[in-house]
């Protein structure tokens, strides 16, 4: 993972160009039985998801999430505006009182309004970019699928995966890059879009009490999310390692837990960056939650979970004993491939359409080799 990746040619390899006769179609479920997983891992859709994970990780490396949209690409601002609008609709649809099992039924009202907003706004973005309007339904479906389940009133990593797919769809269709000036998406752009999404989803989860979808409880990373940890560790990886790598002959040990999680100084590197152990410090979490996705996700956990951190979030606690962010990041990618993309209950809901994520074998020669970690299911 340390060799530089030629992102432009990698991107071309997985999504060469949009053919003029591209036949868009609304995504359909194709993973019906667990045996379908194997084919899934050979599809173009899967290769593109792998590309996206590597692409966002590369671009956000050593970058802070921006505090505002100033200076970001217009296409990025348009997509972020959709996400902010969805968050705004939450204010217009307050939770209702009355008997219920768990999730608040007002979520369904919000969901249907969000669906309408998405179709309108994504349509406008596509039109403004003179991409064929046929793309609208296929692209919008991924953002709609990223809102959670309207039947089950829950949210999990499958929905989050759909957002990655939506982001990728915008990227592949050229809705984000500025073609006139030849400027392509930067790390700030990516962090802005994803942070607007997570902000919106967290608001939805807490406002309407969405259930964790298929949580692994204390045996999983997080009840709802995985991507902010990948993005956040990617943001932080690379700096310490460069300077300290030669000196640190001893291998980083997973089990070397911080004995007393209180001393803030050792949680920060001399370069002013938090170490993985800093998840035990509220002070550092608060300092970094806006600019770093990992700490943003940790802050949310502290907000919604009761009890000691190591008890309710033991996987994250164990990760806090890993010495370097580069290890954290590569571990999280492996875990994502196995626990999200490798798990039938999660990906059975993923949709495959005509152009963006086709259910067809990926043929481009040599491209898979650039795919980084690949699948490591246990």
């Amino acid at each position: 993972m340390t060799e530089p990746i030629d992102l432009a040619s990698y991107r071309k390899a997985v999504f060469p160009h949009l053919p003029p006769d591209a036949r868009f179609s609304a995504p359909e479920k194709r993973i019906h039985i667990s045996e379908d997983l194997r084919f899934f891992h050979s599809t173009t859709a899967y290769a593109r998801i792998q590309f996206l994970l590597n692409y966002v990780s590369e671009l956000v490396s050593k970058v802070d999430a921006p505090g505002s949209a100033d200076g970001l690409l217009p296409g990025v601002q348009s997509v972020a505006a959709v996400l902010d609008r969805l968050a705004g609709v939450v204010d217009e649809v307050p939770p209702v009182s009355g008997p219920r099992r768990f999730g608040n039924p007002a979520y369904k009202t919000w969901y249907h309004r969000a669906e309408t907003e998405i179709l309108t706004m994504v349509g406008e973005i596509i039109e403004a970019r003179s991409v064929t309007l046929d793309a609208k339904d296929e692209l919008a479906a991924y953002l709609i699928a990223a809102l959670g389940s309207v039947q089950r009133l829950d949210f999990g990593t499958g929905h989050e995966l759909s957002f990655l797919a939506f982001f990728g769809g915008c990227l592949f269709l050229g809705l984000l890059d500025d073609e006139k000036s030849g400027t392509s998406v930067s790390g700030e752009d990516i962090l802005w879009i994803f942070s607007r999404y997570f902000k919106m989803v967290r608001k939805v989860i807490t406002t309407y009490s969405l259930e964790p979808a298929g949580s692994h409880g204390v045996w999983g990373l997080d009840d709802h999310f995985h991507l902010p940890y990948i993005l956040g560790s990617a943001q932080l990886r690379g700096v310490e390692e460069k300077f300290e790598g030669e000196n640190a002959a001893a291998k980083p040990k997973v089990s070397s837990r911080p004995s007393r999680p209180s001393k803030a100084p050792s949680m920060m590197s001399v370069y002013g960056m938090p170490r993985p152990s800093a998840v035990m410090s509220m002070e550092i979490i608060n300092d970094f939650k806006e600019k770093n996705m990992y700490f943003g996700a940790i802050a949310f956990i502290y907000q919604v979970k009761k009890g000691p951190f190591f008890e309710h979030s033991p996987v994250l606690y164990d990760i806090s004993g890993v010495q370097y962010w580069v290890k954290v990041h590569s571990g999280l990618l492996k875990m994502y491939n196995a626990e999200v993309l490798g798990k039938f209950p999660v990906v059975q809901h993923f949709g495959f359409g005509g152009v963006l994520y086709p259910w067809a074998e990926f043929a481009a020669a040599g491209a898979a080799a650039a795919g980084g970690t690949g699948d490591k299911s246990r």
Partner: protein
Amino acid sequence: MSDLISGGSIDLDSCIERLYRREKLAESVVEALCTKAKELLIKESNVIHIKAPVSVVGDIHGQFFDLIELFRVGGFPPNTNYLFLGDYVDRGYFSIETMTLLTCLKLRYPNRIYLVRGNHESRGISQNYGFYSECKAKYGNVNVWNCFTDMFDYLTLSVVIDDRIFCIHGGLSPNVHSIDQIKVVDRFKEIPHEGPMADLVWSDPDPEKEDFGISTRGAGYTFGAEIVKKFLHVNDMVHILRAHQLCEQGFQVLFDDRLSTVWSAPNYCYRCGNLASVLEVSATGERFFNVFDAAPENEEYRQQQEQHNTMTEYFL
């Protein structure tokens, strides 16, 4: 061999005493317990008829301290009869302790404790949602997981209380009109992907529908008011009692008091802030939800260094 086994018999009272203290039993003891339990469970019908009074328990999901809290609230066995509706394992920290204790209680008081199978009592699910990882973490291997999941194949599918209340983990099946159809299911196997056995452990009621519908869980069905009415009428019963779904208040009653969901894992996953309940069915057939909150030990509990999450393999 352990001091808990002598001459082929297991000292169940000592096992139970240790388990109440949350002590881990030796692998050989767990293995012997599972073997004994299989011998007992194989004799049980797919539909067990029992008499009230009985207290009915929903999902526990390894929340051991909360199970003990439930006993404090509802009475310790054998002073209270218990019917457990499945989902003993996964997600929480203490699936092993929970499952070992329930197995011992079943062996010690076979006619006062009944264990129904939930959708998590299967290899496919418990391999992915925590129980497997926990066995690896606490025993260093998966023998215990193999023993327990083999035993799961013997758990019954349903219980009928006083010929009036039909109890299952999940819900109804379009393939089951009469409970006699459950009796002929070959249940001694891994839970299949479809068919009556899958539906009984996977289905959910849908208060907005009348008929059966497709479940977004990927297994089982949703079933509505008309299905419930018809099932109760055909089988001459008055109520369906099930678990399987998180309830903010610890329970939910639907379809004009024809169906109850009981949920027994308070503050689920440390985040949901929900209450839990145990449903007490009295000798005269009244139903009372005894509601309780998370056990105080959860706050006091401090994780020991011995436990390692297998997910950390990714970071080596």
